[in-house]
């Protein structure tokens, strides 16, 4: 791991989708007009499929290597080199990012193909594929970035694409509001995340190794043990806690999950790709990637596990009461992400990543299946208006059912392998509370999923006559994708079979080198190792699954129990709360958004009236001073001058009488004056 093998294939995997996005954005409009939507499909799907082929080739190449050598580095160029912060644009392929790359390009490629059918009638077809390609690129940067800042580039990049795709149908204002909400809520998480990176960088700098390159952090992380951080925590706890806070934003956990249900405003393939299979798992990927740090912070691990468990149960309960086919799946996604966090939180990193993968299979299948239903229903998403669709849409029904069984954890479907493992690991690592939360959550999951299946595919059709007339199976591009994903939901979990059945776990072994650091090994190996106990707990879990299914079956298929009875319990208050998602949106609106907007308005008012008022007052005072000074000048300074002239005038006026104009008068005057002078002289001399 100190000397990663140098490769160049990663850059092509990453750049192919970017090339697709560039073509679609710059020339897509023209291509679509000139060559039709086929050209766009060709470019948009082609680049991702090609990337997938490269990824598979790389995967097999990696399998051929010794496990301890499976660290590949594709170094492109020096990105930032300032103040000890030396970052490369480089891609890091190890087993973990390999798995993610396969999921992103594989599931992503399938969803691209599905979209050619689903979005076929949209005029902005090129724009859709441009964003979808860009998303794939950003997601690949996220998982392949060799340093945390490059990871963050992808992290925010997928946020941008998510924003743009949620609000893809931007003519409806509500869609764009959902996009804004997603982006802003994610930024709240990112706030914590970047501060974690600042602290980590500084902490590593303090021990003489300023770096944010992931593999170097892994090397120097042990030096951070015991270093004090902020707010009374150790540095590692502080950093990991903030990173997890960032993950709650991106991966929709309590308390920042609120954006994900709204994000269903986007086209259904987007919900499948971004808001189920890939982007929302970024948080789990990040925790797994930085397992060496998280393992050093038991307090953070507990927080992760408990938040994961709480979210798993909480979101599942909200899922019970939703009537929108996609909203149910959205809350289900939040809930399943909770399972993954619970897994990594208790130290079962491999189990978390495993569930991430199987979830990508079955949740993509469920979303695309729901998309197929919505497509057939002409845009209708309310399950109360559906029913009996299994006859008209057999492929959709069968694949949807397979995925439902998978998410329910019915053996041997994919979800059983991963979810059962998580629930057991929670108990085995001593997190009994988390275990209980996950167990109840599992039962509820089965309930709301079968509720959905029964409401959508069984019973009587409850929509309009026109809708019924138009019902049809989806076109091949969509149907084949459903079949592939349905098949993956069935067999995709066979790469790791529970220990009490057989010792076959190539998936876990493949990932092992990633989780090789000392603290991680300690955390993973702690707890109970008993196959018989594991089998017993597996049975308990399965009992809960059956109970959940029975409840759904009674209420929504056989209809021997009226769900109304439950919704009216406790005077309907509980049902109201669940139906309205516990009023969390309203709470945020009331406690955060409105006060913030009000304080903004207040500040703007202060700015315009008080701060600028002071400036204007200063100006006004200057003008007043000038006016007063003008008065002084006009009446005092100039007044003195005028007074002098007035006095002169007055005296002159009086004196002018002497000027008679009569020569005789003057002469008499002269004579008199001479006489007086002579007289005075004479008197003086006398």
């Amino acid at each position, binding site marked *: 791991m100190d000397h990663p093998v140098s490769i160049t294939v990663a850059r092509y995997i990453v750049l192919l989708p970017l090339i697709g996005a560039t073509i679609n954005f710059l020339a897509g409009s023209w291509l679509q007009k000139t060559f039709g939507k086929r050209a766009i499909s060709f470019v948009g799907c082609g680049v991702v499929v090609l990337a997938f082929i490269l990824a598979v080739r790389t995967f097999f190449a990696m399998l051929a290597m010794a496990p301890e050598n499976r660290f590949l580095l594709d170094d492109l160029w020096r990105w930032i080199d300032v103040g000890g912060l030396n970052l490369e644009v480089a891609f890091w392929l190890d087993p973990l990012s390999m798995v993610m790359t396969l999921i992103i390009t594989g599931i992503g490629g399938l969803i691209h193909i599905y979209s050619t059918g689903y979005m076929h009638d949209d005029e902005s077809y090129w724009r859709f594929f441009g964003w979808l390609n860009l998303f794939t690129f950003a997601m690949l940067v996220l998982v392949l970035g060799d340093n945390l800042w490059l990871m963050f580039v992808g992290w925010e990049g997928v946020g941008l694409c998510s924003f743009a795709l949620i609000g893809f149908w931007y003519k409806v204002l509500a869609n764009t509001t959902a996009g804004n909400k997603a982006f802003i809520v994610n930024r709240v998480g990112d706030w914590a995340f970047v501060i974690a990176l600042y602290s980590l960088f500084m902490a590593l700098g303090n021990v003489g190794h300023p770096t944010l390159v992931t593999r170097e952090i892994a090397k120097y992380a042990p030096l951070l043990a015991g270093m004090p951080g902020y707010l009374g925590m150790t540095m590692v706890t502080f950093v990991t806690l903030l990173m997890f806070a960032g993950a709650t934003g991106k991966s929709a956990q309590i308390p920042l999950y609120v954006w994900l249900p709204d994000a269903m405003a986007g086209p259904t393939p987007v919900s499948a790709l971004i808001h189920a299979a890939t982007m929302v798992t970024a948080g789990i990927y990040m925790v797994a990637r930085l397992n060496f740090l998280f393992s050093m912070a038991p307090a953070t691990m507990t927080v992760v596990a408990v938040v994961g468990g709480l979210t798993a149960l909480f979101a599942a309960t909200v899922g019970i009461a939703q009537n929108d086919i996609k909203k149910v799946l959205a809350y289900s996604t939040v809930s399943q992400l909770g399972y993954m966090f619970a897994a990594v939180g208790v130290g079962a990193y491999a189990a978390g990543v495993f569930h991430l993968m199987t979830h990508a299979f079955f949740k993509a299948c469920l979303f695309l299946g729901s998309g197929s239903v919505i497509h057939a229903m002409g845009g209708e998403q309310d399950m109360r208006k559906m029913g009996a669709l299994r006859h008209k849409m057999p492929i959709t029904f069968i694949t949807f059912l397979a995925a439902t069984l998978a998410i329910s954890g019915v053996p041997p479907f994919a979800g059983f392998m991963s979810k059962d493992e998580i629930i057991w690991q929670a108990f085995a690592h001593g997190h009994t509370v988390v275990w209980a939360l996950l167990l109840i959550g599992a039962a509820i999951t089965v309930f709301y999923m079968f509720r959905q299946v029964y409401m959508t595919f069984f019973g009587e059709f409850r929509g309009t006559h026109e809708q019924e007339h138009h019902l049809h199976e989806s076109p091949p591009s969509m149907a084949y994708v459903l079949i592939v994903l349905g098949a993956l939901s069935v067999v995709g979990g066979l790469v790791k079979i529970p220990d009490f059945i057989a010792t076959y776990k190539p998936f876990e072994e493949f990932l092992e080198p990633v989780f090789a650091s000392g603290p991680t090994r300690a955390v993973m190996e702690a707890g109970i190792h008993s196959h018989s106990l594991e089998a017993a707990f597996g049975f308990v879990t399965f009992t809960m699954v059956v109970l959940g299914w029975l409840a759904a079956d009674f209420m929504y298929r056989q209809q021997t129990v009226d769900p109304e009875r439950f919704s009216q319990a406790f005077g309907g208050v509980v049902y109201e709360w669940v139906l309205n998602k516990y009023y969390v949106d309203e709470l945020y609106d009331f406690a955060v958004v409105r006060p913030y907007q009000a304080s903004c308005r207040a500040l703007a008012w202060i700015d315009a009236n008080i701060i600028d008022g002071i400036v204007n007052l200063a100006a006004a005072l200057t003008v007043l001073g000038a006016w007063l000074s003008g008065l002084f000048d006009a009446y005092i300074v100039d007044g003195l001058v005028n007074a002098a002239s007035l006095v002169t005038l007055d005296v002159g006026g009086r004196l*002018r009488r002497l*000027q*008679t*104009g*009569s*020569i*005789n008068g003057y*002469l*008499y005057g002269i004579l008199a004056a001479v006489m007086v002078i002579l007289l005075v002289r004479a008197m003086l001399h006398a």
Partner: protein
Amino acid sequence: MGGGIGLNHFLLLSLIIFSLGMVCVLTRRNAIGILMGVELILNSANINYLAFAHYGGAKYDGQVFAIFVIMLAAAEAVIGLAVVLAIYQNFKTIDVDATETLSG
């Protein structure tokens, strides 16, 4: 004063002529009359110069001054008459009381 005519006689004559001139200047309304009065005053001064020159120790100083005064009087008469003519042209009279336009 050994009989005969002495300095005092001249001074007396001069005084009489000066007084006549002064009265003439002060009382006349006619500008020409005033000019004539001025001539009398000047000439009374001339008599004084000559008398003091004759009886005093100075040689020809008095005569020189007298000639100056005569020249000056001539010049004065010219300018004075010109002024009078100008006044006449403006006022159609040479009565000085009629020309009190400078009165304040």
